[in-house]
């Protein structure tokens, strides 16, 4: 055979990040660095009202008093905030009346991402809010949603058109003082998505946002605020990619979910930011704060597939405030090469009869480190609350690490908590079984890994599930020596 296993390995090492391309569009940047002035410039460029500038400035002051956190098993050179461009908007040539007027370069990018708006338009059931760098470029399906009273727009638009909603809920779930990166985001967030589902309304389609970091040296600080009013339902998809670059890019988002009485929010993420190359050069630093609050009988379900970023630090959480509320967390996190992921969830049980479920599947390959860190707290008043957690880790190489750090705190004698975790190697027997049936090693691994992650992948909406499966495959290619 001419094509040897070594050739194959080499091919896989050389394989480029599938989405590693940059788009050439004129973009308007402000100078690098972070001062109070930066915050003011961002706010004024966006023509924001006074109260929002105040909100930002307050957050900035809190931020100045904070120090950057350190985490076990996550080591990296901290991004220098003075080298980051905090605002970059694709320069609009004119007001966009329809999609056809969107910069063809941008459209091309979208196409390469496999989410061209043209296609998406035809694909009924998906409305896309596309965030390139910091400004939402185009939003589809707006009219259709509008008829139902559903608001789905960029964050900046929401500030202009629905200030009362933004003002009422912004920062109520993630206060700007919550942590270093949340404070930073609150001061300098550029844009993001806003969504409001009115009372008793079931959103008829999956709402989808693609985030993408394009401009080199820009940090992306998007802000998402999603409010599901009483008795409503929404499923929200978020996909993230970034082009390939040598330097590290910072991404520090804040997502706030509010599920009022009887409401249900399903929030799914497929995160595929550029993970850096095989030597760990470049890649996105992904420090995200995601949290939702559930009122009575409400439900929030987080599903995430994390394959990207050099460093991921992320704990989508649920505050189960209302009685009978439900929180769920389903996660697959894959790390390869020099990636580091520290992810998990917090389930804070406050109301009575609250329930939470945590299913976390970690997959570590290369020299990567993959940690699950989670907190389940049953408060004094959370009678008859239940939690079930299952955290599994799969190891692909002897140079990676997999770590599990659950915190389980119970202050109520009527609660029941169950936590299980396992760590094991990908099964040699399973691999040989596949080989014997004629399924080659790479394929066998992808089959086994996908099977292992099935429980979580099944929670994703169809369109995403297929993409997620493909991503797992791509991320692990060449990972087994």
């Amino acid at each position: 055979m001419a094509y040897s296993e070594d050739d194959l390995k080499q091919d896989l090492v050389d394989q480029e990040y599938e989405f590693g391309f940059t788009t050439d569009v004129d973009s308007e940047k402000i100078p690098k660095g972070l001062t109070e002035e930066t915050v003011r410039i961002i706010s004024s460029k966006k023509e924001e009202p006074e109260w929002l500038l105040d909100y930002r400035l307050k957050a900035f002051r809190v931020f100045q008093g904070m120090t950057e956190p350190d985490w076990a098993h996550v080591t990296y050179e901290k991004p220098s905030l003075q080298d980051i461009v905090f605002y970059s908007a694709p320069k609009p040539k004119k007001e966009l009346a329809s999609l056809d007027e969107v910069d063809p370069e941008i459209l091309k990018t979208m196409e390469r991402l496999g989410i061209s708006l043209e296609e998406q338009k035809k694909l009924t059931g998906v409305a896309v809010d596309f965030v390139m760098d910091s400004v939402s470029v185009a939003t589809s399906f707006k009219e259709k949603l509008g008829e139902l009273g559903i608001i789905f727009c960029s964050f900046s638009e929401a500030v202009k058109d629905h200030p009362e909603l933004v003002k009422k809920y912004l920062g109520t779930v993630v206060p700007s003082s919550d942590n270093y990166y949340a404070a930073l985001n609150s001061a300098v967030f550029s844009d993001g998505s806003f969504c409001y589902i009115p009372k008793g309304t079931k959103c008829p389609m999956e709402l989808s946002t693609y985030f993408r970091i394009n401009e080199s040296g820009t940090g992306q600080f998007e802000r998402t605020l999603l409010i599901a009013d009483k008795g409503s339902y929404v499923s929200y998809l978020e996909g993230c990619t970034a082009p390939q670059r040598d330097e590290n890019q910072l991404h520090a988002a804040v997502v706030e979910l509010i599920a009022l009485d009887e409401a249900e929010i399903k929030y799914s993420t497929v995160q595929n930011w550029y993970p850096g190359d095989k030597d760990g050069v470049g890649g996105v630093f992904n420090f995200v704060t995601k949290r939702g609050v559930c009122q009575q009988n409400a439900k929030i379900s987080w599903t995430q597939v994390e394959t990207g970023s050099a460093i991921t630090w992320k704990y989508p959480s649920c505050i189960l405030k209302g009685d009978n509320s439900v929180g769920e967390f389903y996660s697959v996190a894959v790390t390869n090469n020099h990636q580091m992921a520290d992810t998990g969830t917090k389930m804070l049980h406050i109301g009575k009869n609250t329930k939470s479920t945590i299913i976390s599947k970690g997959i570590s390959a290369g020299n990567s480190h993959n940690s699950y860190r989670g907190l389940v707290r049953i408060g004094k008043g959370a009678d008859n609350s239940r939690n079930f957690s299952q955290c599994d880790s799969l190891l692909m190489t002897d140079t990676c690490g997999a770590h599990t750090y659950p915190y389980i705190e119970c202050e109520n004698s009527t609660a029941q908590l169950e936590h299980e975790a396992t760590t094991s190697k990908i099964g040699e027997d399973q691999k040989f079984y596949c080989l014997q049936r004629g399924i080659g090693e790479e394929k066998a691994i992808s089959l086994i890994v996908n099977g292992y992650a099935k429980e979580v992948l099944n929670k994703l909406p169809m369109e995403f599930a297929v993409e997620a499966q493909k991503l797992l495959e791509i991320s692990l290619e060449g990972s087994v020596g």
Partner: protein
Amino acid sequence: MVVLKENNLLNSLSQMGVGLGAKNQAFELLKELEFPTRKTEDWRYTSVKKILKKKYVQFNEAEQVDLSNEIIPSLDAHNIILVNGVYSKELSDVNFPDEVVIDTFPNAMEEHVSLIHSAFNGIAKNNEEVFTALNTSYFHEGVFIHIPKKVKLEKPIHVIHVNTKSNVISNLRLLIIVDQFSEVSVVQSYASLNAVECLTNSVTEVFVKENAKITLDKVQSEEPNNNLICTVQVNQKANSIFKINTATVSGDFVRNGVNIDVDGENCTSEMNGLYMQKGIQHVDNHTKVSHLKPNCTSFELYKGVLRDKSTGVFNGKVIVAEDAQKIEAYQQNKNIILSREATMNAKPELEIFADDVKCSHGTTTGQFDEEALYYLQTRGLSRESAQALLVQAFADEVLDKVDSETLRIWIKEKLD
């Protein structure tokens, strides 16, 4: 060192005992170390504020006391007695086989100086654990146990520690070396006789050499209003077996640390614990197994029943080092909360740096199965006795790990 404003603990101590160099080093170290606060990750759920506030008295002579309650009558053991932290030759058994050493450091030094020097303080984590540094610095004469090669000590060694005066601080120090192909069983019990507000700070170093085996049973039954910090530091060499069972019966503040470095292939390590808490008792069990070499197995089972206003902590960590392949590590922690005011915090951790491993942990916190209770009630048991029966069955799973039946019965009696 940052002297806490109210650190009377340190102010009440003065150095004494043998002049081992390590003691001076620890003493110096102590000046730099800080006492843990709730911000210290390993002490997140356990506050030592109250302990540090108190004033203590140190003893350097053993009292004559009546220990009939503490000696297990039907346990045919070599009883070694420490009163208020001080070894009592009068009360202790000295009839053990010639080749075996059980004595204070100063006495044992005469013949075994190089052995003691090679091992003592070798694995104690003075620079990480301030209470260990405190112990090293201030312990009185300590006890040295050496089981030489190819000796199987038939009778168990029972190290009994009692505090007989209030406000006593006892820094107990034990060094156990089990040499190649040897076997021994050691029981350590902690009690107080009409004494309150004491602090017992016990550090045990255990060296388990190649093909050796040791079982360590700890029984903690201090009277309420006493504080106990117990650290066990273990180093296992190839083909050895180490087993520790910790039963916490009483004592208002109990902190147990068990750290095992499995430093050889084909070892088995086992840790079991039972805590039955009442009143305002606070019991914290921290365990850490570091698998440094391949082909080893570790098992862990900790169970607790929490009543009244008690609080429990379980923090079990399993580390598998790089290249320590073919490790199997299993950990279970189960808790039953029987009172609205009790709190349980569990934190099982896995840190895995090798790939060919099978590790798992599980923890549950909850109540008794209502159906089981109901079933027993339909069979004529009152709810109370049904619950008592289930508690017993729950505890038995751990107690069954205690090999000696005599000891098991003795613990059960204490629990009742």
